[in-house]
């Protein structure tokens, strides 16, 4: 009822047809499909020269596996890339000789050149046997039962999406069985002029369906739907006939509207599901393949043939006899167009693809590649002058993705790319519906393409900048680390030299201090004896600190064992100096007890006691003195021992001053006292030097 009403409405308002399909927008261009479809398919002659660009797909450029002058057989693998990168290998479409591997113009709107392998064909046309390296056993053995097996064969055959995108098909196929619920055969072919898929379905329907069947089997996909626009009745008929042989294939005629052949549009129309933005159809369990791709898969698996040719349409208003033909990849455009008898000389650029999404090629000699579905020869029309946007909103109604083309246009024009991105620019399929309906003839799609390119380059630049920053920081960190290591090394070396010098100085110092010992009074000598006993005890307890102190100089120590004993003595003295007080008390107590046991009379005891105390006090005083002197010397040594005679003199003065300070200050403050003394000494030295300098000055003056 509703559809009938709309059909009636279309008589007075043709755009009302839009309501007959499920996706938004869409346009109704003039199709001109009868131009090419009314002529039978032609057999094109073998070109003299085949030009095979190394980048016929989305992804990395292939590397040539052949060299100049090599003879190649038909179906021979001639180029492939590292498996890490997304790519599809390329095979020789005909046998012949490699005459050049050089940069030639690519069938790309940029007009850039790319590396191409040029094959000069020969007459013999030798075929390579088993080009896909199938196992010797023929038949079912080659039928892939797992997704991986299917992917391997599809990769080896060099199959890419032949609807126009050129995405390597093996990368599109999921790795696991059962992930795909529906396989959609895309036979919509919604672009005007193009009829190659129509013809393919008419002539090779069973091959297309067989290809679909292989995929469905390998992926365990339960249902296959073929969507064909209703302006191809013959194709629908042929497909329906062929589908009788298979049980799970459904042929679905569709309303003729552009862009019905878009992936998301066709899915919406057939399954009424929308693919979320930023995801692929695979994520929703749907796999879509173009009819040409399916036929190529059939040829690869059932015939063992890699992708070397494809059906293309040669059409256009400038041609007398447009046609469809199975064309070898690498055939130059001009040769094909000449066969279609141009009405006038070909002095205008040809178009690859349809009038909606196609582009003018930079040079009519560019070759047919895997993604070429149509060559259009439309004589240049007077281009409509672009007028300012009148904000009519037609583009918004026409957009099949439901975007806001007018907003996108404004922001793209003013280079506000962040806002364009927020308006989902990257969901735009560049179908050209908005430009088609624009009453001001604004090239809207070109603005979107420009914005996309700018955003992409900005992102790449940002990535590069981040990388550069990271690398720079790493370099700085490395340099800092190396410098620190160098400094540490130098410091360690300096320290070692210092130690060496110190030891040397200490050695000479010991020799110098030996005679001073003789001068000491016998009482002191006795005290020293007692101290030596304690020293022995203490060295055991203070073993550890000595070790740490001497650890760095073990080598020198082993060379000079006498010195190590000396070091030990110094350490012991240090330790003792802190314990002197308690030691003194201890010794006093001991002597007291001794005296008590020695005599029984109280008076004697008393005198003995007094004597002992006096002696102890004397001893303590001596010990204090000695300890201080010792400590003083140790400090001197750490302060980078000067020359011998200086050391001894300063020591003498040191002990002199110390004598007073020791009596005055408690032992706990010894460190501070020593510090003070050192300072005083330093000041004295300074004063002395100054006096000396003055004296010499005076002398000079005199």
């Amino acid at each position, binding site marked *: 009822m509703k559809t009938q009403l709309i059909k009636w409405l279309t008589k007075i308002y043709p755009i009302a047809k839009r309501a007959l399909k499920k996706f938004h927008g869409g346009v109704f261009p003039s199709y001109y499909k009868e131009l090419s479809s009314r002529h039978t398919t032609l057999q094109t002659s073998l070109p003299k020269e085949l030009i095979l660009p190394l980048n016929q797909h989305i992804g990395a*450029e292939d590397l040539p596996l052949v060299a100049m002058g090599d003879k190649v057989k038909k179906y021979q693998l001639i180029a492939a890339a590292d498996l890490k990168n997304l790519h599809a290998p390329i095979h020789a479409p005909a046998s012949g000789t490699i005459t050049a591997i050089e940069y030639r113009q690519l069938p790309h709107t940029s007009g*850039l050149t790319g590396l191409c392998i040029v094959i000069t064909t020969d007459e013999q046309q030798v075929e390579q046997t088993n080009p896909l390296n199938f196992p010797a056993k023929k038949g079912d053995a080659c039928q892939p039962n797992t997704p991986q097996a299917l992917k391997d064969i599809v990769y080896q055959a060099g199959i890419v999406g032949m609807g126009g995108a050129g995405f390597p098909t093996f990368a599109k196929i999921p790795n696991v069985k059962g992930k795909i619920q529906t396989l959609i055969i895309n036979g919509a072919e919604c672009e005007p002029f193009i009829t190659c898929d129509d013809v393919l379905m008419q002539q090779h329907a069973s091959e297309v369906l067989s290809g679909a069947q292989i995929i469905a089997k390998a992926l365990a996909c339960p249902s296959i739907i073929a969507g064909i626009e209703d302006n191809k009745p013959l194709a629908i008929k042929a497909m329906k006939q062929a589908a009788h042989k298979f049980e799970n294939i459904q042929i679905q005629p569709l309303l003729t509207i552009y862009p019905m052949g878009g992936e998301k549009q066709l899915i919406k129309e057939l399954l009424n599901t929308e693919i979320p933005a930023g995801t692929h159809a695979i994520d929703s369990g749907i796999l879509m393949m173009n009819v040409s791709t399916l036929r190529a898969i059939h040829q690869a698996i059932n015939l063992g043939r890699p992708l070397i040719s494809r059906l293309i349409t040669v059409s256009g208003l400038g041609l007398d006899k447009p046609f469809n033909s199975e064309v070898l990849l690498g055939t130059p455009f001009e040769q094909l167009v000449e066969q279609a008898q141009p009405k006038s000389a070909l002095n205008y650029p040809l178009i690859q693809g349809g009038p909606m999404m196609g582009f003018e090629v930079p040079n009519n000699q560019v070759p047919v590649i895997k993604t070429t579905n149509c060559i259009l020869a439309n004589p240049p029309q007077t281009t409509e002058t672009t007028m*300012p946007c009148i904000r009519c909103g037609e583009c918004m109604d026409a957009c099949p993705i439901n975007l806001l083309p007018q907003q996108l246009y404004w922001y793209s024009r003013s280079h506000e790319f962040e806002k364009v991105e927020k308006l989902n620019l990257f969901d735009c399929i560049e179908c050209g519906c908005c430009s088609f309906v624009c009453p001001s003839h604004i090239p809207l799609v*070109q603005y979107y393409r420009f914005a996309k390119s700018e955003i*992409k380059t900005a992102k790449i630049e940002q990535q590069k*900048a981040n990388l*550069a920053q990271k*690398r720079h920081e*790493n370099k700085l960190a490395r340099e800092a680390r190396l410098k620190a290591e160098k400094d540490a090394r130098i410091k360690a070396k300096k320290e070692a030299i210092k130690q060496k010098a110190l030891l040397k100085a200490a050695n000479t110092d010991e020799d110098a201090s030996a005679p001073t010992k003789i001068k000491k009074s016998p009482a002191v000598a006795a005290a020293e004896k007692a101290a030596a006993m304690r020293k022995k005890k203490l060295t055991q307890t203070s073993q550890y600190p000595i070790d740490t102190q001497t650890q760095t100089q073990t080598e020198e120590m082993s060379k000079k064992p006498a010195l190590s004993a000396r070091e030990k003595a110094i350490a012991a003295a240090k330790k003792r100096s802190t314990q002197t007080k308690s030691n003194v008390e201890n010794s006093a107590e001991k002597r007291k007890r001794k005296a008590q046991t020695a005599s029984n009379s109280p008076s004697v005891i008393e005198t003995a006691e007094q004597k002992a105390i006096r002696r102890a006090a004397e001893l303590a005083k001596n010990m204090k003195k000695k300890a201080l002197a010792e400590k003083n010397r140790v400090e001197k040594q750490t302060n980078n021992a000067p020359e011998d005679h200086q050391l001894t003199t300063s020591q003498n003065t040191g002990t002199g001053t110390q004598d007073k300070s020791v009596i005055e200050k408690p032992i706990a403050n010894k460190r501070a006292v020593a510090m003070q003394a050192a300072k005083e000494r330093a000041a004295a030295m300074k004063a002395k030097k100054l006096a000396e300098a003055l004296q010499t000055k005076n002398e000079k003056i005199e």
Partner: protein
Amino acid sequence: MLDAILIFLGLALLFGLLLGYAAIRFKVEGNPLTDIINKELPQTQCGQCGFPGCKPYAEALANGESEVNLCVPGGHEVMIKISEITHREPVEMADSTPAPTERIVAIIDEDVCIGCVHCIKACPVDAIVGATKLMHTVITDECTGCDLCAPVCPVDCIDMIPIAQTLQTWGWKEPITQVEQTSATSQDNSSSSDKPS
């Protein structure tokens, strides 16, 4: 009356303490402007601004110790961005030559290279590989085109070349239409008032 004053004094004291604590606890290390400016700089680390790398220049800018127009590879656009971030008057670029639109990279003539490692030391991003008395080469993907290596080469074997465009790097140009160009000024006037929000 006294109650109210006391309550508010107490509250003031409490919040003051809270703020004081927060100021210490959540103190931002360094100048946050530095990172914002550093993001805008092209990270070529070329040192043409007189600072050793982009970050030191960003730091100097954040502390207001430097002019905004010193980034040569960034050119006018970066200068405008910096002046906007730092709220300072934009200054015309000292070097009036426009920044090169093409990306350039260094390339070493490997036959001439003597392996002196001067360029390796000069490279701010470690994009040159090689060793003493062995041939050096540039990792093109990581070269920023800062041109620091070329002057230090004793045999002048380093050239700065523009990167060739490939299908991957090619991008669509902005469409230019005659009518729009002529009517651009009037349209801009009208569009500025009713620009879509």
